[in-house]
């Protein structure tokens, strides 16, 4: 029963497993599902395992039982997006042409009206192929469609109601909000960084070491000798280097602050350093980057087991990274390009990574990002990215 419903769920992208479908059949055969409301709830709790898919489920349910249309993104949204594209086009024609993979000169021949139409067509094409994944336009995050979900305005509530309240509920799409990616909060960062730790024995000797106790007792010919150990505590050394200068990091201040606060509260042995854009001869221990410099050469004094985390958008002009006098600060003129300095850090700390607040799909558009990626493994500053970063940092042990 309801096999096609199962396939609709699968088709619109909810990960449903056959086992859970069989379980739903079992529930149906047990006679505990007596109405469409029951079915709505039962099928959801059995088949759908994350609130992120509740919205999709609601859409699929309304479609299956009520014939509500599964939506194409409607005209208004498309024209909104096209308008945004047009603005983008006016700002930097070349970049946009590149992102769309078309010839700049061809576009520039069109009138604004034609251009709008062209963008609209392109967008429609794209939505059909990608189920509304509207992130293909990667011009530096100015796209109005900020997340990857399939999210047109609302479901058409015009379907003929047959007084089935579950369908109404589904048509309300109450779970719309949950399918969006929320901002990263401190507790979420904690969640992701939880596995980043290195347990070493510290503190008072208050735990019984059973094996050792048995061994000693045997040695003592049965006279009991209890051996205590120190308990294990986390003593991971971390250096967090934050890019806190320049306008390019401005949009990410909130997220960086969150990470910063979490790191300070969580890690006992944490050193926070600051730099601007990229690292030259010095890192700074004070956020103003003035009073307490730390020479990059001195980093060799630190434990190489230290996890070195660099946090920055890695976006700058290529010469800032490559030229021998790349630093915009006149006093940093040792004749070594930043590129070499970064290589030096990567060589000193095998567990070094780069966290980038820019999303991964924007990376290919900035040249310095790909250059820095050759030196450091780079991860985006999202839940998934943090997880991957932690796995990477702990794996080489």
């Amino acid at each position, binding site marked *: 029963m309801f096999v096609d419903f199962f396939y609709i769920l699968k088709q619109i992208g909810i990960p449903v497993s056959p086992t859970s479908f069989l379980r739903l059949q079992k529930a149906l055969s047990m006679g505990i599902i007596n109405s469409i409301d029951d079915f709505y709830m039962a099928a959801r709790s059995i088949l759908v395992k994350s609130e992120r898919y509740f919205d999709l489920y609601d859409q699929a349910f309304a479609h299956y039982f009520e014939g509500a249309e599964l939506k194409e993104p409607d005209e208004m949204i498309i024209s909104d997006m096209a308008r945004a594209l047009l603005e983008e086009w006016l700002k930097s024609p070349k970049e946009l042409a590149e992102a769309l993979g078309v010839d700049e000169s061809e576009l520039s021949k069109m009138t604004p009206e034609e251009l709008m139409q062209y963008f609209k067509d392109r967008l429609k094409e794209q939505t059909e192929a990608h189920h509304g994944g509207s992130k293909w336009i990667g011009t530096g995050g100015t796209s109005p469609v900020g997340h990857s979900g399939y999210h047109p305005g609302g479901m058409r509530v015009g379907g003929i109601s047959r007084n089935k309240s579950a369908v109404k509920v589904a048509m309300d799409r109450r779970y719309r909000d949950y399918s969006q990616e929320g901002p990263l909060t401190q507790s979420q960062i904690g969640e992701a960084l939880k596995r980043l730790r290195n347990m070493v024995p510290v503190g008072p000797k208050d735990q019984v070491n*059973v094996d050792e106790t048995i061994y000693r007792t045997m040695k003592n010919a049965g006279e009991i000798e209890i051996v205590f150990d120190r308990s294990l505590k986390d003593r991971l050394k971390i250096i967090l280097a934050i890019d806190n200068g320049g306008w390019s990091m401005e949009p990410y201040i909130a997220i960086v602050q969150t990470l910063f606060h979490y790191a300070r509260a969580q890690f006992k042995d944490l050193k926070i350093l600051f730099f601007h854009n990229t690292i030259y001869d010095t890192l700074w221990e004070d956020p103003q980057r003035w009073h307490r410099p730390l020479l990059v050469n001195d980093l060799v004094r630190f434990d190489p087991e230290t996890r070195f985390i660099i946090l920055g958008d890695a976006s700058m002009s290529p010469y800032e990274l490559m030229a021998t006098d790349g630093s915009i600060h006149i006093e940093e003129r040792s004749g070594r390009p930043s590129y070499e300095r970064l290589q030096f850090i990567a060589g000193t700390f095998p567990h070094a990574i780069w966290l980038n607040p820019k999303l991964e799909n924007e990376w290919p558009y900035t040249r310095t990002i790909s250059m820095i990626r050759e030196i450091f493994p780079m991860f985006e500053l999202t839940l998934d990215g943090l997880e991957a970063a932690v796995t990477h940092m702990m794996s080489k042990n």
Partner: protein
Amino acid sequence: MPNDSSVTRFTGATHYVLDDELAQIVNISMALEMPLLLKGEPGTGKTMLAHAIAESLNMRLIVLNVKSSMKLVEALYQYDTLTRLNDSRFGDSTRDVSNIEEYIKMGKIGQSFVSDERVVLLIDEIDKADTDFQDDMLDVLDQMEFDIIEIDKTIKAKNRPVIIITSNAKKDLSDPFLGRCNFHHIAFPEPDMMRQIVRVHFSNIDKDLLDNAVSTFYRLRDLRGLEKKPATRELINWIRALRSDPDFKVKDLVKGDTPYLGVLFKKSPDYVVAQNSVARFRR
């Protein structure tokens, strides 16, 4: 056993306001004998639900509070080596030292298995433990049995407990884990529901106070830039604080005065945000 799950249906308890959805899901999970995984913002009553189920079904509730350092075996049983060592040394206890079984203590999951009656087992904040713990635990809950290695004995569940698992995390649990649970996400209650909830806690509450407190509460929840939004628990405590203050008048709330913000906001940056915007309400 299976038959009493269909006889005992869950309809709600005295201190818990249950929406129909949730009652339905609880009943289905009981009938299918599957653990029910509850997710949702802190303060939406995930833990309370288990208490309510236990109360309304008249079962004993066993709570396993998961900790990050916890090993699965601790939740199952513990072998008290130290006591045994002492007993063998001094020989002044009534226990039989040669019988290891006397030194096995059941953990929370173990207790729920050996209990003579069916119990409600609440596994609270599963997301704190690592993935291995979660998967191994579900194996045990699937099989409804585990081995005690020291005495080579298999403990089988006498009665299948009603299992409720809660998780705060926004991050998803592992797929195999999710595959074995029923899932429900408790959304934050709507104002109407919230009024009912408050009424359950304060049966004689003044309607004016209730309406104004709840609407102020939702307005404060909507502030931008909060790290931890106040939840039901905070609202209840806040109303308790307002009621116990003899100088407090409901009029003040209408005017935009909001005393005892500290009860609602427990993180200092949030408190500051709230204070600033409360100053704006007043104007």
